[in-house]
């Protein structure tokens, strides 16, 4: 029912629906308050027993009122109704019930509760074993879980950002406000973040005055002052969800969740806040007192009843009762009475409970039962001497306060037990730079929180080296809790401790009986504290019950700690907005534009997008295209963009020595104007990467690597330069992007290049195989030419500054028409290098050695190089598998890379495995598929027939072992 007052805007009525029915509320309502205003007490069904449940709290610790919010692609399950700001047209549906909230078929679980106690699944669904996968698991999977996903792509946009501050104040209640004000006035750069839409925290539900003003008025004038401070950034609707390393905090700002649609704003923003200091003023959460049947709709935190009445002007019922062990409960009763709600009784477990208002107080008493399946109807109150049933539609329970120590344990700090407060408070181990203030450290009454926030600000300012000004605190009434602990009401029946995971006191007793007594076992065996609320309303109570059972004290029992996030956050916001093609950055080659206009099919090669092949009209299958590209290259001339291969510029007086130590083969002897193939080994003696080394001048080299290893090779070279041999005078920088590089290969390669190169003699005598030079092309453009080839044809690579690459590609193709010029992509590139027996990434997979690659003699014994010594270790010498070529006996058969090799007739098991096929392609030259493979003693088995087995797909292909070079084995074309 609606009450008067509150911080809602009655001039803005809003329509919303819940489970298909329409209701109205006001701007300023949450979904929870609006439902209560409409007398909707039943909002969900519990996880295991499917018991009817209602709103329990007024904040983000809510365990019961979880709804599916919105519909369609923006539907989000497990949304706490207490945190949903009402907007026009809001749609919400209840979860975990079928067919309806009122008549839930799975409530039958409640009848079998004795069989579904904690850990029941460790003892059931075991037999027969075969039933698990096909029957039990699917059933449990369907029954388990809370809300459901829309299964549609998330259409919302998410954003991210970085903030830096001297001080981050986490929580904008009384303590946080004082802290932010004090620090900002002293000139610190402050960020104040609060998870709510309004600043104030519990002040928004407070009826006590500050300096004689209402809390609302006091807040308004304070916010006015805060807005004038340019060094203070206030972030509302922002949850600081984690304390990470180096003073970095993660926060999620709900930018447009409170709007019907985000429009062109992001839905949420992920903020990384780096703060030199922080003040955790995250408040405290009221604990409840378990008693028999304490989970009915209408039974909630007493402070929630108070907040609903004072802030949102609603009460779940016209007649309510309070069950308390401290003075807070009486405050709630007083405020509700003032709003016209009938107080049936305040049931106070303390024999000496005060009289703080005009309502019945039953002292030394406890609530021992309740009635009303879909909504509370009455409670049983017992005390020495007798019991009675009292009718009421709602019960507010106050068992004391649990300081919100969540964030302090993110760096594994443990909270400590305060015997006077009967609560866990932050211990000495806090994340670096953090101070705690207010209710979060057990100083939760208004006067204490204000003072605590101011003190925390002073301490932080001192640590920051800033001079604090004295902060005048508003005058408020001093109130005490006077708590006498009552952890639960003993007795028969089930008393709920963790509402969200349906864990009762009985379950804790069972855990004790099963010897699951240490808190980490208690938690995991009962699943208490493992739901989306992380046990915010149950952890401490559970520890107290276990302590009672074991006879230990609560501090002796200990506590579990928390890890981020503080409240659930969407994975999408963690992604920071990078979705789809923007998930990863994509690198484009210099001739990408030209390739697009020519209809290239592109392929992802690591971060790069490379042209894979260029289909021509009439080509229906990629093989037709690739075969054509290969044949045309070998017949005329082919051009391919090879910019992606790593290029490192190496200079310096000691460059030659440096390279000689990096490559396993000799490199110091390389002459100016020549290129040499080079192999780098890893420290452990395995092959790392291969490439070329070109000596452009006395102390100037360009080292190339494979595309995939460009980054690792550069890193390796920098590590060698900076850490291994800092005494060498050598300088490095990457030039992979700077120079567009094209392979020009085929019998007409020289003729084509002569048409672009300015005045240079490219004859075989003047520019032999493996020569290199700086020269100019196309009328004076600086360029580099390297006579290298990996496809077995007369071949060159020409490089120009990348901005001219696109034009050069077009020019070469234009000038080469009569020479049969063809552009080829990575697919043809791969076919040709396999035909030529060249090792590539498949062979250099980190598990092979120079020996296996047939390059054993490249590892110089005359000089040391990285990996040389280890390459000679006995373990690697035992390896007998070497690279060979394979052709299927039947040219119609495929060669499947990854196949394992066996002798003909051998049983195909691991012990008989003789190697594997590393690369395979269809060779137009050989008119059959071919492969490169590592085969035991391959060198001695030329001509032998072996079996390539692919057992996963039932393939067995007979192969002939042949040399690795299929095309131009004498290398005549290369050197002509």
């Amino acid at each position, binding site marked *: 029912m609606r009450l008067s007052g509150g911080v809602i805007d009655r001039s803005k009525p809003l329509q919303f629906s819940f489970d298909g029915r329409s209701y109205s509320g006001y701007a300023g309502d949450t979904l929870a308050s609006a439902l209560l205003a409409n007398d909707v007490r039943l909002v969900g069904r519990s996880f295991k027993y499917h018991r009817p449940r209602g709103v329990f709290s007024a904040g983000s610790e809510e365990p019961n009122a979880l709804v599916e919010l919105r519909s369609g692609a923006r539907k989000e399950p497990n949304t706490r109704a207490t945190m949903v700001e009402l907007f026009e047209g809001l749609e919400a549906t209840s979860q975990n019930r079928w067919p309806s909230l009122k008549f839930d078929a799975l409530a039958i679980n409640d009848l079998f509760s004795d069989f579904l106690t904690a850990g029941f699944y460790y003892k059931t669904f075991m037999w027969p074993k075969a039933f698990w996968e096909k029957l039990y698991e699917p059933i449990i999977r369907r029954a388990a879980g809370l809300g459901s996903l829309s299964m549609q792509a998330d259409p919302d946009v998410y954003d991210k950002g970085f903030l830096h501050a001297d001080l981050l104040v986490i929580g904008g209640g009384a303590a946080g406000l004082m802290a932010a004000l004090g620090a900002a006035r002293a000139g610190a750069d402050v960020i104040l973040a609060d998870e709510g839409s309004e600043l104030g925290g519990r002040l928004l539900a407070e009826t006590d005055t500050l300096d004689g003003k209402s809390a609302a008025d006091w807040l308004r004038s304070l916010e006015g002052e805060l807005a004038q401070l340019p060094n203070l950034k206030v972030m509302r609707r922002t949850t600081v969800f984690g304390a990470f390393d180096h003073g970095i905090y993660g926060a999620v700002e709900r930018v447009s969740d409170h709007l019907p649609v985000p429009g062109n*704003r992001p839905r949420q923003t992920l903020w990384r806040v780096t703060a030199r200091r922080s003040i955790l003023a995250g408040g405290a959460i009221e604990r409840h007192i378990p008693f028999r049947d304490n989970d009915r709709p209408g039974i909630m935190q007493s402070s929630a009843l108070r907040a609903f009445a004072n802030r949102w002007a609603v009460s779940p019922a016209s007649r309510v009762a309070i069950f308390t062990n401290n003075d807070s409960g009486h405050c709630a009763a007083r405020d509700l009475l003032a709003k016209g709600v009938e107080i049936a009784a305040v049931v106070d477990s303390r024999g000496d409970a005060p009289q703080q208002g005009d309502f019945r107080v039953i002292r030394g008493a406890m609530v021992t039962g309740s009635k009303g399946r879909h909504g509370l109807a009455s409670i049983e109150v017992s005390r020495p001497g007798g019991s009675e049933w009292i009718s009421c539609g709602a019960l507010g329970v106050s068992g004391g306060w649990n300081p919100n120590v969540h964030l302090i344990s993110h760096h594994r700090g443990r909270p400590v037990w305060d015997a006077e407060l009967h609560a866990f408070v932050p211990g000495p181990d806090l994340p670096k730079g953090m101070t705690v203030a207010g209710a979060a450290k057990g100083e939760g009454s208004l006067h204490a929180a204000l003072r605590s926030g101011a003190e925390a600000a002073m301490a932080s300012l001192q640590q920051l080296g800033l001079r604090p000004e004295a902060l005048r605190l508003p005058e408020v009434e001093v109130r005490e809790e006077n708590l006498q602990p009552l952890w639960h009401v003993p007795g028969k029946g089930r008393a709920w401790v963790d509402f969200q995971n349906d864990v009762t006191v009985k379950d804790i007793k069972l855990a004790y009986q099963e010897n699951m007594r240490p808190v980490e076992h208690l938690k995991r065996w009962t699943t208490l504290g493992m739901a989306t609320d992380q046990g915010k309303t149950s952890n401490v109570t559970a520890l107290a019950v276990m302590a009672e059972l074991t006879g230990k004290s609560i501090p002796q029992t200990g506590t579990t700690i928390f890890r981020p996030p503080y409240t659930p956050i969407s994975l999408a916001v963690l992604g920071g*907005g990078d979705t789809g093609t923007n998930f990863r950055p994509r690198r484009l080659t210099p001739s990408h534009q030209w390739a697009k206009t020519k209809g290239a099919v592109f392929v992802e090669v690591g971060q790069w997008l490379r042209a894979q092949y260029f289909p021509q009209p009439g080509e229906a299958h990629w093989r037709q295209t690739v075969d054509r590209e290969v044949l045309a290259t070998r017949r005329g001339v082919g051009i391919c963009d090879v910019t992606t291969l790593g290029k490192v510029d190496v200079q*310096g007086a000691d460059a030659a020595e440096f390279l000689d130590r990096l490559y396993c083969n000799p490199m110091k002897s390389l002459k100016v104007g020549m290129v040499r193939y080079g192999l780098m080994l890893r420290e452990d003696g395995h092959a790392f990467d291969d490439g070329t080394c070109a000596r452009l001048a006395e102390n100037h080299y360009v080292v190339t690597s494979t595309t995939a290893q460009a980054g690792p090779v550069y890193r390796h070279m920098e590590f060698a330069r900076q850490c291994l041999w800092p005494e060498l005078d050598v*300088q490095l920088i990457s*030039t992979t*992007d700077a120079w567009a590089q094209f392979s020009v290969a085929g019998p007409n390669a020289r003729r084509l290049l002569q048409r672009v190169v300015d005045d240079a003699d490219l004859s075989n005598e003047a520019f032999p195989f493996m020569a290199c030079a700086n020269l100019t092309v196309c009328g004076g453009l600086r360029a580099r030419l390297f006579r290298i080839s990996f496809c077995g044809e007369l071949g060159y690579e020409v490089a120009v500054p990348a901005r001219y690459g696109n034009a050069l590609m077009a020019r070469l193709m234009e000038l080469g028409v009569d020479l049969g010029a063809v552009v080829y992509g990575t697919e043809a590139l791969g076919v040709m290098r396999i035909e030529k027996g060249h090792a590539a990434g498949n062979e250099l997979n980190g598990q092979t050695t120079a020996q296996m690659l047939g390059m054993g003699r490249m590892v110089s014994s005359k000089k040391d190089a990285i990996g040389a010594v280890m390459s000679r270790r006995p373990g690697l010498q035992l390896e007998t598998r070497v690279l060979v070529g394979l052709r299927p006996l039947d040219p119609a058969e495929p060669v499947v890379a990854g196949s394992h090799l066996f002798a003909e007739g051998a049983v195909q098991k691991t012990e008989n495995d003789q190697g594997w096929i590393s690369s395979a392609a269809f060779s137009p030259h050989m008119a059959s598929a071919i492969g490169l493979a590592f085969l035991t003693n391959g060198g001695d088995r030329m001509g032998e027939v072996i079996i390539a087995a692919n057992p996963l797909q039932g393939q067995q292909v007979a192969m002939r072992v042949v040399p690795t070079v299929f095309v131009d084995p004498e290398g005549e074309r290369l050197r002509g």
Partner: protein
Amino acid sequence: MADLIPITALGLAQPKSLTVGSLSMTENTGLALASLALRRDAEAVCPFGLVLPEPGRWVEKDGVASFWMGPGQWMLEARGKAEEDFSAELKQQCPGHSVTEQTDSFAAFEISSPAGAAPIIAVMTKLVNIDPRGFTPGSATRTGLAHMNVFAIRRADDHLAVLGMRSLAACLWHELERALKGVSEVPA
């Protein structure tokens, strides 16, 4: 003169520009770049009259600028000289040292605002984990931006430059554009 027509890092004939609210961004296609790494036994140098800056700093004089990249290593920038061989010019200024052409290693995007520092700082908070309070004019640093490696240079209060790998130019432009649009949104 060379008759090949260059294209921009974004694959276009002309540099791309964008104006959103009080922020403008332009691809700086005319910027020449060359790296300078000092060799051990060569003379100290002051290329183009610039005193090579300390770590984290950027200096400028008469259209040529320099920022620190590593111990003994700097990048030199020359406005408008991208189609010349600027590295050859630098080599002449620094005989005996290691000079490498870097013009097309990077794509440069200049972000400026007629409204002064505030929009520049706003856009920085959406892009890079750099404390703007310490990133005053004359600051330059290497940093991460949306899984990419970039140089960020505060050329002036109202002017920020972001240099990223040329092959990633399209991705970088996309991220920068998103940030510019994001901070120019008028809140509901």
